[in-house]
């Protein structure tokens, strides 16, 4: 039976990664991810976890080591944030192209400058197109559940793609809260031992990562696109089996009070919990407001999202990072593209909120819904704004 514990979310994440019988952890500390790899290094040093912990000199080396160990057939984990993620991103593309099932926890943090260590989604958006499977957690329980799910999905022979679990830096990573921590036997039941499909072995030499000349590069990229899209049924199957075993069901798009809603908020990550409280208050005041949350960021769940928002009059899309001078923030761009393809045309207003650690409050969500609704009524052109930015 899972045990209800109070624990810092980062420590719980490390404990669960430890229970996956991970073979290699290569990592470099960076705020706000540090506690995750720090605790893993403690578990290894104390002899509680039989794994190789490689304390590398940079995130570029961390991901390079992960690529090497995963290619050799080892279950491999790392974690990073922000600037460190930027530094490792060169190798992140390669990990996905080599189809290496590395699992990474990203404690999401703003990108400098100005220098900022606090939470937003700039790092998640920066690495949108590295080709990894990406899920997003809203609370501590989801962090540990999605980490188990990540290993299960990444290593499935129908997927074989590196997988990220995004968790909001500080807001989740540094939070002490109650979680149900699984027992070892439960983890073992859900996550079978990793069996590599191909691995670097001197006895049976193969080449990984050759040059892709112009005559094959397009096909290689297409194959990656197809692989990422094909991961979706496995992601859903692994969530179904997770629900069967642990009683918690996850979906690519989660909805809250969307039934009969005229005005929808669209969020991603831990602010979704605050948004739910705001929706409760607005519903209590007789407003037909609901909430859709993106759980699966890559592969992008266009069908599920379309189903969730179809019928709404207005959509307030919250982005946690800018797409400078684009028509809207990165999440909203995807949403608008999905709406256009789906022949669905609600009024959409885009809010760039919670940047670099700025709080997003219950009141902010009420203000956003009211403003979008008013703009729609006045027939104003759709657009975006930096929420509560001082002029």
């Amino acid at each position: 039976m899972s045990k209800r514990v109070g624990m810092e979310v980062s420590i719980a994440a490390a404990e669960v990664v430890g229970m996956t019988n991970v073979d290699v952890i290569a990592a470099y500390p960076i705020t706000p991810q540090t506690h995750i790899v720090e605790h893993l290094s403690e578990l290894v040093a104390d002899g509680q976890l039989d794994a190789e912990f490689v304390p590398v000199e940079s995130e570029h080396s961390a991901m390079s080591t992960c690529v090497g160990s995963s290619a050799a057939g080892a279950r491999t984990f790392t974690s990073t944030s922000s600037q460190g993620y930027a530094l490792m991103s060169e190798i992140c593309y390669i990990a996905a192209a080599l189809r290496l099932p590395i699992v990474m926890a990203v404690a999401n943090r703003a990108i400098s400058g100005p220098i900022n260590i606090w939470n937003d989604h700039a790092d998640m958006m920066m690495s949108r197109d590295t080709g990894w499977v990406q899920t997003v957690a809203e609370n501590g329980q989801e962090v540990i559940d999605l980490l188990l799910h990540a290993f299960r999905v990444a290593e499935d022979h129908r997927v074989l793609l590196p997988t990220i679990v995004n968790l909001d830096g500080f807001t989740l990573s540094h939070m002490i809260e109650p979680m149900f921590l699984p027992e070892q036997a439960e983890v073992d039941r859900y996550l079978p031992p990793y069996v590599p499909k191909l691995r670097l072995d001197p006895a049976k030499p193969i080449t990984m990562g050759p040059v892709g000349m112009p005559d094959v590069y397009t096909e290689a990229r297409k194959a990656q696109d197809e692989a990422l899209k094909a991961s979706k049924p496995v992601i859903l199957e692994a969530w179904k089996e997770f629900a069967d075993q642990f009683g918690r069901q996850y979906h690519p798009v989660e909805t809250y009070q969307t039934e009969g809603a005229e005005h929808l908020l669209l969020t991603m990550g831990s602010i979704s919990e605050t948004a739910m409280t705001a929706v409760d208050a607005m519903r209590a005041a007789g407003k037909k407001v609901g909430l859709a949350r993106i759980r699966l960021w890559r592969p992008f769940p266009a069908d599920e999202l379309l189903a969730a928002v179809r019928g709404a009059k207005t959509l307030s899309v919250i982005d946690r990072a800018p797409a400078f001078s684009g028509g809207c923030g990165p999440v909203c761009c995807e949403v608008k593209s999905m709406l256009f393809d789906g022949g669905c045309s609600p009024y959409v207003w885009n809010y760039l909120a919670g940047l670099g650690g700025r709080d997003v409050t219950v009141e902010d969500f009420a203000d956003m819904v009211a403003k979008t609704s008013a703009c729609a009524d006045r027939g104003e052109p759709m657009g975006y704004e930096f929420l509560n930015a001082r002029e």
Partner: protein
Amino acid sequence: MIEIRFHGRGGQGAVTSAELTALAAIEEGKFAQAFPSFGPERRGAPVMAFVRVSDKQIRTREKVYNPGIVVVLDPSLLKIVNVEAGLGADGLVVLNTKLSAAEVRKQTGLKARLALVDAATIAMEEMRVPITNTTMLGALLKATDFMPVEALRAPIEKRFGPIAAKNIKACMRAYQETIVEG
């Protein structure tokens, strides 16, 4: 839902106070969150930490703006920090001080209901260190009743190991000696 804000100086254990409170509440079967004021911390500089405790699942990630209870680990902070910021009309300030309530009001202008304890003396006598975090938790739970003071025993033991007994003694002594305004 109860919201608590701890004021201390870096190194005095305000963050630990918040953590122990949440861990004890979770052990009691409640829901809780504990978090620091996120960012770089410096020893000696004013720091804050926050706790939410509820019988129901807590579904917010907002900062704590309107605590019902404020715990002040270091009385010198009263000169440089408005510890009553955001505190409601029926709010409570739990204060480490050697002074009487009348003298505290005269010197600081605090308006909230007060719970007072000489935590510095208790900590020095029981633990030989001027760290008042566990001591002030005894005062907090004397002044409020959202969980029994005994709930702190297990998390303090887990956190402090060989020096847990001294911390528990200081905590329980503060529980006895705290004076709570009616």
